[in-house]
Every structure is written in structure tokens, then in C-alpha cells.
């Protein structure tokens, strides 16, 4: 190894260490921002050092590509609303996966035209990188489309989707093995692999419904990480291997956490059970027989203003209504009256892991008031009012006690244990899982039939008058 190569590799080591230290600082919100900067410095070192590589013979691709990419990335990142963060992450994810796939495709092309002769392991890494990167690319595009509302958020399933997906995987793996054995000589097999991988990404994400997106995004994230690590094997570049492995691990952990939060296995989510309209009569059939206590904003405001402890439970409906600022305003008004206010946040309250926390942080809710499921559940029985805004399935006790409900076993926020419950909701319609919610019919529940934003505004002005 020449001295020059040694310096490059030591610089890569430094970059990898900075990535690790950066993520480590994400353990606390107080140090997280500096952690992101540490990680960015690591990135800068890795990139700058790479430019000194003597393989580089032409600069225009790097300069032109960098300028275009930097402008696109920076403008998108500055403009995006916090509500749209999941699709932003999906988009960046797709770009990363696409880049990894393009690197591998490039290497395979070089081998094909005789510009290089990669060995067996390097070819294998290229093929894997192509497969994973390409499916992460199209999968992320579909996920982006669904979250952005460009593609229907409803699950789109062909008859026998499961078998189609399995067939596509068999084709992809077959093409991969063929291309691997034939080396660079069999470019047709490689093209089949690329196309199959692109189609798999679409076929995998199309059947998945909007509320299952947190799992999909996490999974695509782990794919892209793995693809990046594979490119590291292709190019024998340590920092790519470490960076990719870290992301792969992170995506895998988040995928597992999200699946656990929905009490569903990954196969169940990918091949889907929930999301189809319920068989038989609609879930509301018995509505007439149960009594619901509908209240106006004034009555609800009295209950809130004279409570000593209130727990807010926001769900994705809050984000859709863009009402997080109104919620924060009501919360701080109650606090100024001496009410103890907390927020209970379900892991799948948003469209990606931790999404709701970001939305509330944006509305200036201090993070020490945000509690996760395990922290807040023991506190509900001491709360005077639990306020449910834009959430449904995640507070549905059917998950605890109705074994044949599709959400049975899913961990929920125990709002039914609070002394009273206020639900702000436009109608009694069931949530994503199409399961009727017994909370609505409890004696201690007040229903404020209103859109989240308008309901919270009315409550705020009513509390001011109390």
C-alpha cells in the first residue's frame, strides 16, 4: 500500500468514526443537533479525500453533478413542510438507492465492454447492490407517491399478488445467479435483473396502505443502507461499507419497532391483511343502539379548564388537518391556568417513526412534555381528561379485549383509563383498520364532532372565556 493510499484509508476511518460519534449524540435531544454536524463533517472528509484519488481523470461529471444535486437537495430540504417529512425521507432514500444501483450498473457495464475484469466477489456485490438499490429506488418512488397523494394511498392488489411477487423474486434471483456464473459475458441476464428489481420495488409497495407506511419507509431505509454497503464491497471502499452498515442496522431496528407497534409481522404488512373494506355490513351497523354523548366546545372547555391533569393523544388526523399549532396553543393556555399537560404519543401516530414528535416540536411544544407509549400508559388513570385528536385505532381498547379484531394485540394508549375522555372527531367513522371504537360510546366520553383544527380553535376560545 502506498503512503497515499494509506492516508486515504485513514481519512475514511476518521469519517466512519465521526459517523458513529454523530449517531451516538442522537441519544439526547440536547446533543442531537451537534451530532448531525459531527456526522456531516465525517461526510465532508470522506468526500474530499475521495477527490484526491488518482483514478479521477475527468472533473466535469463531478462538478456538474454536484452543483445540480446540491441545489436540488438543499432547496427541497429547506422548503419541505414537517408534515411532508415522510415523503421527503422516502425521496432521499430513493436517490441513495438509485445512486448505489447506478454505481453497480456502471461496474457491470465496464466489465461487459472489457474495461475491467472484476473477480467473483466483486461481481456478486455489484449484482446484489443492483438488486437492492433498484428495488429501493422504485419502492421509494411509490412510497413517495402514496404519501404525497400522487398514487392512491389505498392498498392496490392484483389477484394473486403474493405469487406475482414471489415469481418476480425467483426471476430476479435466477438472473442474478446466471449473470454471476457468466461473469461479464452475459449482459442480457444482468438487464433482466435490473428490470425485475425495478418491478419488484413497485409490486412490493403498491399493495401497502397509507397507515402502514412507517414500516415501509423503515424497511426501504434498511435496503438502501445495505445497497450502499454492497457498493462499498464493489469499490473496496471501507467508508461506504461502514456507512451503509450503520444505516442498514438503523432501518432494521426501526422496521422491527414499527411492526411491533402494530403487532403485525413484516410478512403480514407486506402481503397485507388490513386495508380491504370489511366483509359483511359496515362496522357502524349497530351505531343506533349505542348512545353517544355529544358535547359543544363550551362544555368540553369547562372540563379541560377545571382539570388538574390533561393528557393529549394526537394522531395522524391532526397532521392532516395541520392543527398541531392549534393543539400547542390550547395546551399552553391550559398550562397557564395551572393544568398539568402531557402528550401521549403512539409509535405509529404519524407516517414514519417519530413523526408526531417532530410535528409537535415544530409547534413549539417542549420535548419534555412528549411521552412515548410505555411512559404515558401508567399515567392515564391519574389524568382527569384524556383528549384524543385525530387518532382512532391507536386508542381502541378492542386491541386489548376483542381477539378477532384485526388490531388485536396491538399496543394502544389506554385513554379509557382516564377519568374522562374528550374525542375531537368529525364523525363516528372507524379508523384505518375499520374497527368500531368502544371509546366513543363510554359514559365518561365526550364527543366533540368537529374537524381537528376548528375543534381545537373553538376549545381554545371557550377556555379563555371560562
Amino acid at each position, binding site marked *: 500500500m502506498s503512503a497515499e493510499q494509506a492516508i486515504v484509508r485513514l481519512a475514511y476511518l476518521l469519517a466512519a468514526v465521526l459517523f458513529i460519534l454523530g449517531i451516538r449524540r442522537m441519544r439526547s435531544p440536547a446533543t442531537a443537533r451537534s451530532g*448531525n454536524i459531527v456526522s456531516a463533517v465525517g461526510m465532508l472528509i470522506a468526500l474530499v479525500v475521495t477527490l484526491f484519488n488518482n483514478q479521477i481523470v475527468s472533473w466535469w461529471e463531478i462538478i456538474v453533478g454536484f452543483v445540480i444535486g446540491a441545489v436540488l437537495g438543499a432547496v427541497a430540504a429547506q422548503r419541505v413542510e414537517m408534515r411532508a417529512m415522510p415523503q421527503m425521507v422516502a425521496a432521499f432514500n430513493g436517490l*441513495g438507492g438509485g445512486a448505489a444501483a447506478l454505481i453497480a450498473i456502471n461496474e457491470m457495464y465496464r466489465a461487459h465492454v472489457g474495461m475491467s475484469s472484476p473477480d467473483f466477489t466483486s461481481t456478486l456485490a455489484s449484482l446484489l447492490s443492483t438488486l437492492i438499490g433498484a428495488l429501493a429506488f422504485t419502492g421509494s418512488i411509490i412510497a413517495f407517491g402514496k404519501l404525497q397523494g400522487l398514487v392512491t394511498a389505498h392498498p392496490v392488489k392484483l389477484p394473486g399478488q403474493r405469487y406475482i411477487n414471489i415469481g418476480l423474486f425467483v426471476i430476479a434471483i435466477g438472473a442474478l445467479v446466471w449473470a454471476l456464473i457468466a461473469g461479464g459475458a452475459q449482459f442480457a441476464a444482468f438487464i433482466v435483473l435490473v428490470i425485475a428489481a425495478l418491478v419488484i420495488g413497485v409490486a412490493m409497495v403498491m399493495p401497502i396502505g397509507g397507515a402502514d407506511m412507517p414500516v415501509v419507509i423503515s424497511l426501504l431505509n434498511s435496503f438502501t443502507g445495505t445497497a450502499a454497503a454492497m457498493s462499498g464491497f464493489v469499490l473496496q471502499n471501507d467508508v461506504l461499507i461502514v456507512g451503509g452498515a450503520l444505516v442498514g442496522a438503523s432501518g432494521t431496528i426501526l422496521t422491527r419497532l414499527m411492526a411491533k407497534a402494530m403487532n403485525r409481522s413484516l410478512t403480514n404488512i407486506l402481503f397485507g391483511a388490513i386495508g380491504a373494506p370489511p366483509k359483511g355490513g359496515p362496522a357502524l351497523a349497530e351505531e343506533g343502539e349505542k348512545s353517544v354523548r355529544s358535547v359543544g366546545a363550551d362544555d368540553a372547555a369547562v372540563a379541560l379548564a377545571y382539570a388538574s391533569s390533561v393528557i393529549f393523544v394526537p394522531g395522524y388526523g391532526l397532521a392532516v388537518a395541520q392543527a398541531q399549532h392549534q393543539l400547542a396553543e390550547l395546551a399552553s393556555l391550559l398550562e397557564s391556568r395551572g393544568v398539568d399537560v402531557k402528550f401521549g404519543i403512539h409509535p405509529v401516530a404519524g407516517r414514519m417513526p417519530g413523526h408526531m414528535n417532530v410535528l409537535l416540536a415544530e*409547534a413549539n411544544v417542549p420535548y419534555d412534555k412528549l411521552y412515548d407509549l410505555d411512559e404515558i400508559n401508567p399515567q392515564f388513570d391519574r389524568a382527569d381528561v384524556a383528549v384524543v385528536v385525530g387518532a382512532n385505532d391507536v386508542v381502541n381498547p378492542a386491541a386489548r379485549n376483542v381477539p378477532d379484531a384485526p388490531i388485536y394485540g396491538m399496543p394502544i394508549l389506554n385513554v379509557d383509563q382516564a377519568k374522562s375522555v374528550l374525542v375531537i372527531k368529525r364523525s363516528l367513522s372507524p379508523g384505518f383498520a375499520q374497527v368500531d371504537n368502544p371509546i366513543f360510546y363510554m359514559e365518561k366520553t365526550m364527543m366533540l364532532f368537529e374537524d381537528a383544527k376548528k375543534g381545537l380553535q373553538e376549545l381554545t376560545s371557550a377556555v379563555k372565556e371560562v
Partner: protein
Amino acid sequence: MNTIVAELTIFVLAILIGFELISRVPVLLHTPLMSGTNAIHGVVLAGAFLVAASKGDGVTAILGLIAVIFGTANVVGGYVVTDRMLQMFRKRPEGETGGRSER
């Protein structure tokens, strides 16, 4: 053969460190964590630099150029958006409510 074994060692150890690190990040920060790690896998940009600018023909130049654009957008966008999110997490609100991100 030596190289691939060494690389595999690095890969496996990095995954284990990753599991160890990530499992300690609080749920509160999972979104910035994901976008931050997202930016990290943008390190494929280093690879894109190499393949874009190495000796090749028109095809490799175009493939490389697109890879550089993708990778750069991933890296730059990822870090910027993560920073934007993390600066919103604070203990007590300063000043009035309603953030800078309202537009």
C-alpha cells in the same frame, strides 16, 4: 481473498455497532435519526465520484453523472433537513409560538 475477508469483518462489526447505537436513540428522535442516517448512506456519493470520473466512455459518464446528482441531493438534502428538524427540539419555548417553518 484477504480483502474480501477484511471487508466482511468491517461490515459485520459496523452492523453490530449500528444495532448498539440505534437502540439507544429515544423514540422522540426517530424521525431525525432516520433522516440523519439517510444522509449517511449518501456516502455512496464517494463511490459515485470514482465511477463518474474514472476512465470510461459515454455510457459510464452518463451513469456516473446521474449517480453523482442522486448522491449529492441525498447527502445535502439529508443533512439540511435533519438540522432543520433538530433545531426545533427544545426544552422550553422561547418567544411566541408559531415557528419559522410556517410559510
